[in-house]
C-alpha cells in the first residue's frame, strides 16, 4: 500500500475536470495507485468518480493536471493506445458478434495470428468458466454470463490495468456477491491493477485493497476497508460507509485522545476527538450501531450514559436491531448479536446506553 513514490503505477496529479467551464466536477484530485492494487472509487452519483475513470480510460480529457500511467503522462494518448482493459456497466458486448468473436476483437486489432488468438480466447473463456459458450451471441446469455464475458474480454489482451465501471449494478444480489468474489480472485491471481467504480459500499468494502471515497469532486478518505469503516475521518464518510448513528453537540472538554461532548438536549458523552479543534466547536458524533451497549456490567467505571427509550424491536435473524429515542432523535439504532444470553427489548422500555469512548468519534459538524 503506497501513497506516493516511484513505484506508483497510476498517478493522478492535481487533476481537475470541468464540463461547462463554470463548475468543477473533479476538484484537485491527487491519487497514486500501486501495481497490482485493487482500488475502489466509491461515492454517490455525481461525486466525480466515473469522470475520473473516464479520464483514466481516455474518454474524457483532464481540464487541468496530469495523469501518469507507469510513469508516463497519458493526457495526449488516445484511448486505443493506452492498453487499458475496461468493463462497462452495461457490459457493451458487441451484439453482432459471437462470444468468441467479441474476445478475439482486441487481439485482431493488435494483429495477432489466428492460432495465437484462438489459444488466448480459449484461455480467457476457461478463466471465467465460460468455455462452452464460445459460439453464442451475447443476447443468448444471462446477465451473469454476459458479465463474465465482458470481464474475459477486458482481460484477454493481458492489460496491466483494468477499469470497471459499476460492472455488477445490473445483477441480482446473489449473483453479485458471487461475482464480487470471482473478480477479486481473478485480479489477484493475474496480478493486475484494478480500478473499480461503484456506489455500493458493501461491494467496495469486500473487494478492495483500498477505497477512495468520493464526494463533491474530492476524495474524502482513502484507506483500506477496515480503517475506512472503523476510523472514518469525517461525517460524510461515517454516514456513507455502513450504518451510522450521528448525534449533534458541542465540545465541552478536549484532551489528546478523549473528549466530552454535550449533546443538544444537555446529555454528556465520552468520545474520541477526530475532527474537532477546540472546546466550544460544533460536532457530529458518530457511533456504529453494533458498538452501542445497554447492559450496565459492560460499561467502564465513570462512563457517561444516555437515557434511551425503546421504540421498535426488529428481529433480523443473526442480529437484533433496536430503534431507540436518544437525545431527542428517534432514529438511533442499536444492533445486538443474537446470542443465547441476549435480551429482546420491548417497545416502551427505558434503558441506559453507552459505549467505549474510542468507538465514538467526534467529527466535523
Amino acid at each position, binding site marked *: 500500500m503506497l501513497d506516493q513514490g516511484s513505484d506508483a503505477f497510476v498517478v493522478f496529479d492535481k487533476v481537475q475536470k470541468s464540463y461547462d467551464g463554470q463548475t468543477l466536477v473533479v476538484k484537485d484530485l491527487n491519487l497514486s495507485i500501486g501495481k497490482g492494487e485493487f482500488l475502489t472509487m466509491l461515492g454517490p452519483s455525481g461525486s466525480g468518480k466515473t469522470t475520473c475513470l473516464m479520464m483514466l*480510460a*481516455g*474518454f474524457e480529457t483532464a481540464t487541468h493536471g496530469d495523469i501518469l500511467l507507469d510513469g508516463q503522462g497519458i493526457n495526449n494518448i*488516445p*484511448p*486505443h*493506445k*493506452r*492498453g*487499458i*482493459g*475496461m468493463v*462497462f*456497466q*452495461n457490459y*457493451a*458486448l*458487441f*451484439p*453482432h458478434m459471437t462470444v468468441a468473436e467479441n474476445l478475439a*476483437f*482486441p487481439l485482431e*486489432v*493488435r494483429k495477432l495470428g489466428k492460432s495465437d488468438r484462438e489459444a488466448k480466447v480459449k484461455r480467457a473463456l476457461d478463466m471465467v468458466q465460460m468455455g462452452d459458450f464460445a459460439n453464442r451471441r451475447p443476447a443468448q446469455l444471462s446477465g451473469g454470463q454476459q458479465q463474465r464475458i465482458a470481464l474475459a*474480454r*477486458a482481460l484477454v*489482451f493481458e492489460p496491466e490495468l483494468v*477499469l470497471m465501471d459499476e460492472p455488477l449494478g445490473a445483477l441480482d444480489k446473489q449473483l453479485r456477491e458471487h461475482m464480487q468474489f470471482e473478480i477479486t480472485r481473478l485480479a489477484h491471481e493475474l496480478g493486475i491493477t484494478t480500478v473499480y467504480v461503484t456506489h455500493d459500499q458493501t461491494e467496495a468494502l469486500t473487494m478492495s485493497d483500498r477505497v477512495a471515497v468520493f464526494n463533491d469532486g474530492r476524495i474524502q478518505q482513502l484507506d483500506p476497508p477496515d480503517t475506512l469503516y472503523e476510523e472514518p475521518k469525517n461525517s460524510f464518510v461515517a454516514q456513507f460507509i455502513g450504518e451510522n448513528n450521528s448525534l449533534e453537540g458541542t465540545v465541552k472538554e478536549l484532551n489528546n485522545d478523549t473528549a466530552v461532548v454535550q449533546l443538544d438536549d444537555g446529555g454528556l458523552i465520552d468520545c474520541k476527538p477526530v475532527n474537532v479543534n477546540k472546546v466550544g466547536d460544533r460536532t457530529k458524533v458518530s457511533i456504529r450501531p453494533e458498538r452501542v451497549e445497554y447492559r450496565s456490567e459492560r460499561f467502564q467505571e465513570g462512563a457517561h450514559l444516555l437515557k434511551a427509550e425503546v421504540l421498535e424491536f426488529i428481529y433480523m435473524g443473526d442480529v437484533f436491531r433496536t430503534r431507540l429515542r436518544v437525545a431527542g432523535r428517534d432514529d438511533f439504532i442499536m444492533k445486538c448479536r443474537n446470542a443465547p444470553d441476549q435480551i429482546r427489548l420491548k417497545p416502551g422500555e427505558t434503558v441506559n446506553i453507552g459505549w467505549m469512548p474510542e468507538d465514538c468519534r467526534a467529527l466535523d459538524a
Partner: protein
Amino acid sequence: MSDTTTEDSTQNGPVLAADGTPLRRSLARALRRQKLRALMLIAPLLIFIMVTFILPVADMLYRSVENGIVSETLPRTVVALADWDASGDTPPDEAVFAALAADMQIAAEEKTHTKLGSRLNYENPGMSSLFRKSGRQVRRWDLETDAPFMEKFLDIDEDWSDIDVWRTIQTYSPSTTSGYYLAAVDMQLGADGPEMRPENERIYLKLFGRTLMMSLAITLSCIALGYPVAWLLANLPMRTSNLLMILVLLPFWTSLLVRTSAWKILLQQQGVINDILVWIGLVSDDARLVMINNQLGTIIAMTHILLPFMILPMYSVMQSINPSYLRAAKSLGATDWTAFWRVYFPQTVPGIGAGSILVFILAIGYYITPALVGGTTGTFISNRIAFHISTSLNWGLAAALGGILLAVVLVFYWAYDKFVGIDNVKLG
C-alpha cells in the same frame, strides 16, 4: 389422483383441461372472444383496404390476361377459324368469311366492332381502321343472298387477304392471353409461339432496366447522404438534434409538386446553379450544364424527395445503439475507424436495410417527379403505365406492366429476406 392426471397428460396424447376437454380446444375457446374483438377493431380498415386496394389490384391483374373480346364479338368466326392452318400462306376459305360476315353484322349493330378493332390494333397496327371500314359496309349486306363473302370483303379492303390479319385474329381468339405480358417484355405471339419484337419496337425492357438502375442509384445516393445526417441526429445534444430533425421533416410539409418544380428552377440551363457556375467562371456561358429533363435531374430530385425515408429508419436504429459500444471498442485497442467499421456500422445495417427497402420500393413506382423532370431519358416504367392508362387506353398492357413491376418488387423483397433477413429490418 393428481399423480395420475399428470401421468395421463404427459404420456397419453393431448393434455386435458380440468373438465376433460383437450387443453388446446379449451384454450382456443377462451381466446375466441379476444380474437373476435380484435377482428372487430380492425374490421373497418380491413373492409376499406379490401374495397379500395385489394379488389382493384386483383381486377387490374386479371385485365392483364383477360381477352374475351375476340371470342365474344366474333364467336362464329373463331370457331370456323380454329381449323385454319396459320403457318401456310393461303387466307381462310369462304366458310370463315361467311362466319365473319354474320358476326360483323351483329357486332356492327351493337357497335362492338370498333372496340375489337382497337384491341387488335395493339397487336397488329391497321386493324382498327380495317374493322371500322368493314363494319359500315357489312351492315348493308343480306346474309341470305349476298354470298360468297370472300370477294365482298376483299372489295372493301385488300387487307382481308393478308395472312397476318387472320393470324392475329386466330392468336387472340382464346379468352385469356399472354399477349399483354409478352408485349410488356418486348415480345409478341408469332406463328411459332412467342418471339422478340423487331429491334426498333422494343422499349419496355429498356425502361424496366432504366427504372431499376435509377432506383438503385437513388437508393445509394440516399444512403450516402442520409447516413451522416442520421448519425448527427442520433449523437447531437437533444436541442440541436430536434432542430435538425425539423429540417429533415420539413420536406414532408411541402407539396411534392412544389419541391419538384423548385428543382426545375435550380437545375435548368438558365437556372440558379448554372448561373452561379457561370458567374464564378467554372463553366463557360455557352457550355451550361444540362442537369434537368434527363436522368441526372430525376436522380437529384428524387433523392431529395425520398431522403427522409432513408434518414428516419437509420436514425431510430442509431439512436438505440449505446455509445458505450464505441468506447468499448476503443478501450480494446481499435482505432476510430476500426471501431466505426467493425462495431458501429454492422449495428446500423438493419436501419440501412429498412431505409433502402422503403426508398427503393417507393422509387421504383415513382411517377410524378420523373414525369416532370425526367424529360425523355429520365422517365420510369410508371410513366409508361400512366400513358397506357390515360392516353392509349390499353389497360391490359398497363396492367401487365404493373404486374411485372409488382413481381420485381416482390423478387427484391424475397432476395433481401434471403440474404439480409427481413428480421434485420428495424424501423425503431
